[in-house]
């Protein structure tokens, strides 16, 4: 199970980093989202993996799952959702204001083809 989780987090992170380094805002947003999923999973397992253990005090329990990472990951998920929503809105605004979805705001060949009039250079 440990190996599987590690591979999942690793693949998510690698894809996230790759996409975050792209030149257009949409892949960048997706990349940052994947990165935040990866980090949420990572936080979740920092209390070690366990199956069927209670997180609260119980008489019959043989051991406990660590409740703290669950609290942490809950906070982190909320924050990352808010941030993702924010950057999506910002990317849309940038598309509207700059006339392109290039992260540096410069028109490239593809944009020029799409908009022959060229709103701005």
């Amino acid at each position, binding site marked *: 199970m440990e190996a599987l989780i590690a591979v999942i987090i690793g693949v998510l992170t690698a894809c996230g980093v790759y996409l*975050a380094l792209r030149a257009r805002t949409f892949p*960048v947003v997706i990349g940052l989202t994947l*990165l935040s999923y*990866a*980090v949420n999973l990572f936080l979740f397992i920092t209390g070690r993996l366990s199956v069927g253990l209670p997180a609260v005090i119980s008489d019959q329990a043989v051991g406990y799952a660590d409740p*703290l990472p669950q609290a*942490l990951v809950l*906070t982190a998920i909320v924050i990352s959702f808010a*941030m993702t929503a924010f950057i999506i809105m910002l990317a849309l605004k940038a598309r509207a204001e*700059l006339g392109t979805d290039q992260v540096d705001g410069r028109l490239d060949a593809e944009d020029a083809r799409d908009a022959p009039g060229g709103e701005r250079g």
Partner: protein
Amino acid sequence: MNHLVIAPVLFPLFAATLLLLLRRVIPLRVRRILNLVALVIQILLVSLLVQRVAGGEILVYALGNWPAPYGIVMVADRLSVWMLLVTSLLAFFAMLYAVRGTDAGSRHFHPLFQLQLFGLSGAFLTGDLFNLFVFFEILLLASYGLLLHRGGANRVRAGLHFVALNLAGSTLFLFAVGTLYAILGTLNLADLAVKAAATPPENLGVVRAAGLMLFAVFALKAALIPLYLWLPAAYSSTSAPVAALFAIMTKVGAYSILRVYTLIFGAEAGPVANLIGPWLLPLALATMAIGTLGVLAAHELRRQVAYLVVVSVGFLLTAFALGTEASIGAGLYYLAHSTFAAAAFFLLADMIAMGRGTLADRLDPGPVIANANLIGAFFFIIAILVSGLPPLSGFVGKYMVLNAAVDLPSMPWVFGVILTAGLFGVIALARSGSLLFYRAEGVIERTGTAGRHAIGPNWGRLLPIIGLLLLCVTLVVWAGPLSDYTRATAEQLLEPGVYIRAVLGDPRSV
């Protein structure tokens, strides 16, 4: 338990909520007054806190009265309170400038300003690594809103980079926090310090890696080389009061570096001691060098000031990297100076840009601005202040840092870079000053909204600049007591045992 400790965190939150709820009900004028009053109360609260901690006591506030390593704590020591004092004074003067018109156009400027203060206060007071992350996010989210206030293509482009980079930084922060928790089993800074010092050899590599990841995050916030590239565009494209308030944002990174790497990975941390020792000084000196090149190369005044912020971060971290009591104390003194000076410069650059019509703040010969004598005099004073020439506080800070470096082995590098950067800074500012004020043509280009009336002898706009300059003068006049305070702060930082005992309250600490 003293409830005063958490007051500077809760009060801005309360003020922000009030301003947010009332934003449609009360007119702009009242909201402005309300915000300024809230900032004055914040300054008073922080001053009360200064009185409490100046003697060396560390105030600990356990939320919900849960004992330290299990519950969340707020810790007010000399360093936190010094940062709070600088922040609240800066915020007051930035707001005083903003109420002259920048705040119009969006009902959310005032609440966001208070929320930014909420995040900053929380980040300085928290005694817990995860809450440091949470408060970072709060202050960043507020800063995104403030940065984009009133929009425009440039702001959106710079804002997109700023947000994307900070999101990547937050992810890295969480990875580092998670790794530290997985290995050491705690997130409380004091408890982390105890546990990190007792790391078993097989876990050393992971703890070191987590520590260095944290350093990367803080370096991004502090705009240390090579992670400073977001700063010039973001700071030069946003509105002046926001840029002035942002003068403290890079210092949040510097504060976190100082806190974490004296407490958890400090000299007494056993196997993980002085984790970033070999990295910090070269990076800080390189930041100064590159920042100075930026100052020389800038084509716009505001971009030049933004690069001056980069230089001051390099200078600050050089002082922290030297790691002696004298150098850290001098660095903290310089921190206050550079924050106020940079903020004043951003505000003045905005005034100059408004007086030059379409030319704005581009460094080209242009029309004479209205009241050129008065504004030129302010430019001259601020240039002296920022470049660290005598007799103002920049010089005192620089002298104290250089004095602290005299006996250290890295002395030639430190002296060489600091003095050369200072010289080039003076040259660049002399060039901007002569371009803006001497090589101006005698006619005023009356284009668009900006003309003589837009600026006039506008004392309302000059008032916050004068206030910030007076703070710098205060730093010189009371240099003795203030540097005693920062020196005592450094002493407290270099003895993490005191902090650990104050938070954990039992003698099992080092």
